């Protein structure tokens, strides 16, 4: 097991190095000078310009800059944002809980609805429930989520006035420190009346929007995996023993059918983060997705570079974790394949 873990870990090192190279080269190629952008259109004293360039290391040779970058990364320094003059890593990790809260809620929403829907579709295979679930799942899978978000705001927030339009909490009514960064928990810790409900109301629409595609995928995978399991011998045996259908499906079949579903959840972290960029932009959700778009619009190279590095590292780590977990469950994967 340890050998397998080490081998998988070693495999991520070249990927990680290549990643640094790609982000480094890409950001250097971006048109527009960050120093000039920062100074606006009024022009700038050439001496000050040179000084700024020197401060940002932009006057060094490319190779030298890359080496500096690697050394920085090795020290856990992901650069300094030009906009805010704070460290990219600290900015990232301040905003990250907001994205994580949203992503976790979206995944929970997708699993809680997707798994039962998939199971029902498989059990009632070919019937109206099956067709309905599969039809909705195709629509969910094909959904342009930025439009879906606007549509929900239009109906739920504007017309029916059920939920707030944007943000994570009403800043006029409630104010408390971000202890954990998770609004639901912070609101609960603050003890202010109604804060948790307000935070939850802010979460509803973004959760639905971000959870739509994972929901469709999970319903589909659950259904097909359930269909496979239902035709297995042990399910037939359980039925023949006279166990109730509920026990057969819920206990014997579902437990085995969930393995591919769990894997797919791990592999969807990338989809979730990509979706978060759109969802956060629509709902003005102060997470890393919105921050990334703001960075690109303001040509904040270091923020963009560090942000993409951190996001990719996160995805690599999660995928590694899923792989290892899968190897732990399934010994056949560890040896050979």
């Amino acid at each position, binding site marked *: 097991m340890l050998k397998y873990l080490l081998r998988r870990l070693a495999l991520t090192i*070249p*990927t990680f190095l*290549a*990643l640094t190279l*790609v*982000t480094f080269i*890409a*950001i250097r*190629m*971006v*048109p527009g000078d960050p120093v000039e952008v920062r100074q606006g259109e009024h022009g700038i004293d050439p001496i000050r310009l040179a000084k700024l360039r020197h401060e940002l290391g932009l006057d060094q040779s490319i190779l030298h800059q890359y080496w500096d970058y690697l050394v920085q990364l090795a020290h856990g320094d992901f650069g300094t944002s030009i906009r805010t003059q704070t460290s990219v890593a600290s900015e990232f990790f301040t905003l990250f809980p907001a994205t994580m809260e949203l992503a976790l809620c979206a995944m929970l929403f997708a699993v809680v609805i997707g798994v039962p829907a998939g199971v029902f579709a*498989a059990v009632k*295979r070919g019937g109206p429930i099956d067709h309905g679930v599969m039809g909705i799942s*195709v*629509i969910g*899978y*094909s*959904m*342009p989520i*930025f*439009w*879906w978000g*606007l*549509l929900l*705001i*239009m109906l739920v927030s*504007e017309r029916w006035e059920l939920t707030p339009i944007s943000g994570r909490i009403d800043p006029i009514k409630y104010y408390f420190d971000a202890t954990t960064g998770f609004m639901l928990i912070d609101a609960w810790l603050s003890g202010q009346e109604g804060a948790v409900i307000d935070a939850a109301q802010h979460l509803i629409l973004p959760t639905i929007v971000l959870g739509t595609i994972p929901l469709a995928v999970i319903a589909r995978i659950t*259904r*097909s995996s359930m*269909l496979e399991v239902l035709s297995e011998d042990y399910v037939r045996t359980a039925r023949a023993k006279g166990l109730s259908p509920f026990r057969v499906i819920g206990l014997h079949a579902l437990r085995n059918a969930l393995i591919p579903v769990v894997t797919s959840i791990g592999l969807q972290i*990338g*989809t979730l*983060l*990509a*979706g978060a*960029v*759109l969802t956060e*932009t629509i709902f003005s959700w102060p997470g890393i997705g919105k921050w*990334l*778009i703001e960075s*690109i*619009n303001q040509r904040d190279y270091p923020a*963009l570079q560090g942000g*993409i590095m951190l*996001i*990719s590292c996160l*995805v*690599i780590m999660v*995928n590694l974790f899923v792989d290892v977990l899968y190897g732990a469950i399934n010994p056949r994967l560890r040896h050979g394949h």
Partner: protein
Amino acid sequence: MATDATAVEPKRPGPLLEFWQSFAENRGAVVGLVVVVIIALLAIFADIVAPHSAIEQFRDFTKLPPVWEEGGNWHFLLGTDALGRDALSRLIHGARISLFIGLMVMSVSIAVGVVLGLVAAFLGGIADIIIMRVMDLIIAIPSLVLAILVVAVLGPSLENTIVAVTIVYMPRYVRLVRASALSEIGKDYVTAARVIGVGPIRLMFVTVLPNCLAPLIVQAALGVSDAILEAAALGFLGLGAQPPIPEWGAMLADNREFIRSNPWIVTLPGLAILITVVAVNIMGDGLRDALDPKLKRG
């Protein structure tokens, strides 16, 4: 090869007919195909079909609702946007943009995917490792984030959208071709071809490639819909096609501020994206069932 097979079994229907029969079994897929064909025809003949130009501004008729709403105008069936441009015409021309992006991304990714995938499978060793590591790297970056990075470097435009989305989706094709080629290489017919002295290029593209096509075609169909969605998302973020190009995602973003006063302007482009992507996806599902019985679901 195909002619030999029909000579031995004259009663068997041709492969195309056989394919069509199993495709037509899936009614949803046929509906998807019909919708895709209609959208494709609209896109091809956009200049003839569209009642107005996509960029002409009728300044006296801004923000009109569709005809069936109060205040609609028969000259502008689906209404007009904030600048008085005909919504229907923009949607029809937008179909051209979206399908063009989808097809371009698909063709380039297939071309690159086939070459890199076959090279990785046939050469093995260092070439294989390098190609697959690069693909792993691309996959490690969330699709939209990578596309944003590419657009940041190249600048936002329709062409660069295509480049960005192609880079994002290329690894799927490379992996697919490599995996199917690897499973074919060990088979007897490939060994036989090798023994009689077939050259490596011919071996790759003529002997092995045709046997890897089925999963590739399925992936291509689903890849078109993903590319359309991704490009629309970039357009929505202002990082895709630039105004006045009638790209559906950009149309949504441009009119976002009128969501309260004129919901139709925002609703229609999104609906166009959804219908197109759903149609391509259910058609792709049908293709998979027909071409690849092993993958058939349920």
